[in-house]
């Protein structure tokens, strides 16, 4: 009989553990009539995503709302669909999402919009039927072209180059890569040969092994462009470890805090990024403007976005966007002042 009691006790132990895990969130959840703003990023453990959440939180706290932040453990659309369902059940007022797939979230997000939830995408867009507006960090064309121009300068105008991207469905990465290909059509790049686009899935190990595979398969590789923060850091580590500094050039989009070491040791001469905190901050103010009815996501509407000043909704392809700004160049001269920021 004592053993049976032991079994019951262990069940109770698990149960109380579950209850204990939920305790802190419950306290923050009891905020009363505050408007609820949800943010879903691509995956956990991505520092860039964490900074976006930080910016979103900053904006919503300025505006007196409540933030619900969610990050799936795998960068998949399936996981994000489940999270959207959970948010609909919680009756949030707005959902801001960085999508893992542009089309796969359409049924879920349309369901949310039907229930009166304001939906916007940021960073990585969903298709225009699945959102009211998209918050874009910078002009995709400029981001794409500028990276080709950078690698052109670094490798002295000729040789094999490769791209190390995130997942193959990441909308933003794919658009930039399209613009890179567009830039490469210019006759001045005739001696540059884009040999492969590899996908590291924004996972550190996979990005490392993809970089190693690139180096093995293309011994004449002169340059790598990694338009993803996880990818560029992984590639920089591989190039440093293998002592390939100067032989294989590296540029792309990276976090100053993670790349400072490699910009200082010369593996990556310079790279670009915007401020993910500002992307999240702008997404927060946009969500608020939608919830308060100041904007509806139509072309030409304007609203005040806190410290970023006035922003305007513009038309892009078949949807609308709000643009944050241009990508910023980080090099040996300014990396020290930025590496502690993010």
């Amino acid at each position, binding site marked *: 009989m004592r*053993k049976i009691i032991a*079994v019951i006790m262990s069940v109770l132990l698990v149960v109380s553990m579950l209850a204990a895990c939920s305790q802190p969130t*419950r306290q923050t959840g009891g905020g009363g009539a505050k408007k609820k703003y949800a943010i879903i990023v691509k995956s956990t453990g991505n520092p860039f995503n964490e900074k976006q959440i930080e910016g979103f939180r900053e904006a919503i706290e300025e505006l007196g709302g409540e933030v619900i932040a969610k990050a*799936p*453990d795998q960068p*998949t659309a399936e996981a994000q669909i489940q999270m959207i369902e959970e948010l609909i059940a919680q009756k949030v007022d707005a959902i801001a999402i960085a999508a893992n*797939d542009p089309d796969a979230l359409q*049924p879920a997000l349309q369901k949310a919009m039907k229930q009166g939830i304001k939906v916007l995408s940021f960073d990585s867009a969903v298709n225009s039927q699945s959102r009211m507006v998209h918050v874009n960090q910078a002009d995709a064309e400029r981001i794409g072209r500028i990276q080709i121009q950078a690698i052109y300068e670094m490798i002295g105008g000729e040789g094999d180059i490769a791209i190390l991207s995130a997942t193959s469905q990441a909308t933003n990465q794919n658009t930039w890569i399209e613009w890179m290909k567009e830039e490469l059509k210019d006759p001045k790049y005739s001696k540059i040969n884009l040999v492969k686009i590899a996908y590291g899935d924004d996972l550190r190990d996979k990005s490392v092994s993809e970089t190693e595979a690139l180096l093995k398969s293309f011994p004449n590789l002169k340059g790598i462009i990694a338009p993803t923060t996880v990818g560029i850091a992984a590639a920089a580590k591989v190039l440093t470890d293998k002592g390939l500094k100067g032989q294989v050039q590296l540029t792309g989009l990276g976090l100053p805090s993670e790349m400072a070491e490699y910009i200082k040791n010369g593996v990556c001469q310079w790279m670009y990024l915007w401020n993910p905190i500002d992307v999240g901050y702008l997404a927060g103010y946009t969500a608020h403007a939608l919830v308060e009815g100041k904007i509806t996501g139509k072309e030409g509407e304007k609203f005040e976005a806190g410290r970023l000043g006035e922003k305007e909704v513009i038309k892009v392809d078949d949807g609308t966007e709000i643009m944050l700004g241009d990508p910023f160049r980080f090099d040996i001269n300014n990396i020290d002042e930025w590496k502690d920021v993010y």
Partner: protein
Amino acid sequence: MFSKKTLNTRKIFFQWEWMLVLIFILINIINSLISPYYLNAGNLLNATMTFMDKAFILLPMTFVIILGAIDISVGSIVALSAVIMAVLYNTGVPMPVAMAVCIAVGTLCGFINGILIVKFKELSAMIVTLSTMIIYRGIAYIILEDRAAGKFPAWYTFLGWGYVAGIPFSLIVFAGLAVIFGLVLHKTTFGRRVYAIGNNAVASRYSGIEVDKIKLIIFTVTGTMSAVAALFLSSRMGSVRPNVATGYEMEVIAAVVLGGVSSQGGKGRMIGAVLALFVIGFLRYGLGLINISSQVLLIIIGLLLVFAVLIPNVRSKLKIKVRR
């Protein structure tokens, strides 16, 4: 000690299915305490939609594990059959035909698994399905090359998102299939033979049971049901990529084992596996409603599994002690 009352309490504690019912009730009580949004019939029915795609694979997987085998290629079969369906639809094939092909592809994949397992007895089901898991997903990647396909017609959304009389369509289909699979397992000669093979395949063979034929049928049906899961999943997603359903095999096997089906084979009931599926599904949903981070969620489900695997051992020791 041996009055009728104590016998009943003993039954409740010694039958895992009853423990699962208790756990299920507890989880619902806790969830409704921690989230004000949990106890809402509409929301709970919606929540079932998020794990119904896996649920279809759970039914044949229970048979596979009672056989004493395992099939870890199911996630890849889902991906391959969904990818072929989406690509066909995008090249102009009518959707109903593409759906039929999806089922055919899944069935063929399962049949290949079955043939390999039956013909090469020196290879365990684990090794065979590990190989086909890699091959099937590999083919999906060759076909679609890291791209997405689909944008299915509007009516197709009904499968994964539709309701009949306020109940999710996927749940209705699952309930119907669960009853059929349960009846076959527990009420037919076929079902009894599955248990016999799981307990002792060699003895079953000598007593005239067509072990190979039964194995082949079960692995083929597992493929078919994976394709059914692919239909519902792709309907929910609206578009398909080669990496869909990654890790589904582990989640399904976990639910079956939590359901009290012995990984050694020969033991377990369909109702246990189905209950366990709802336990895990509702636990995930409840914790999602209070926005617990996904890593913590994984740890909690992991602990629940360890607990489930340990309990039968503790119980069997207990039984011996109580008898003494």
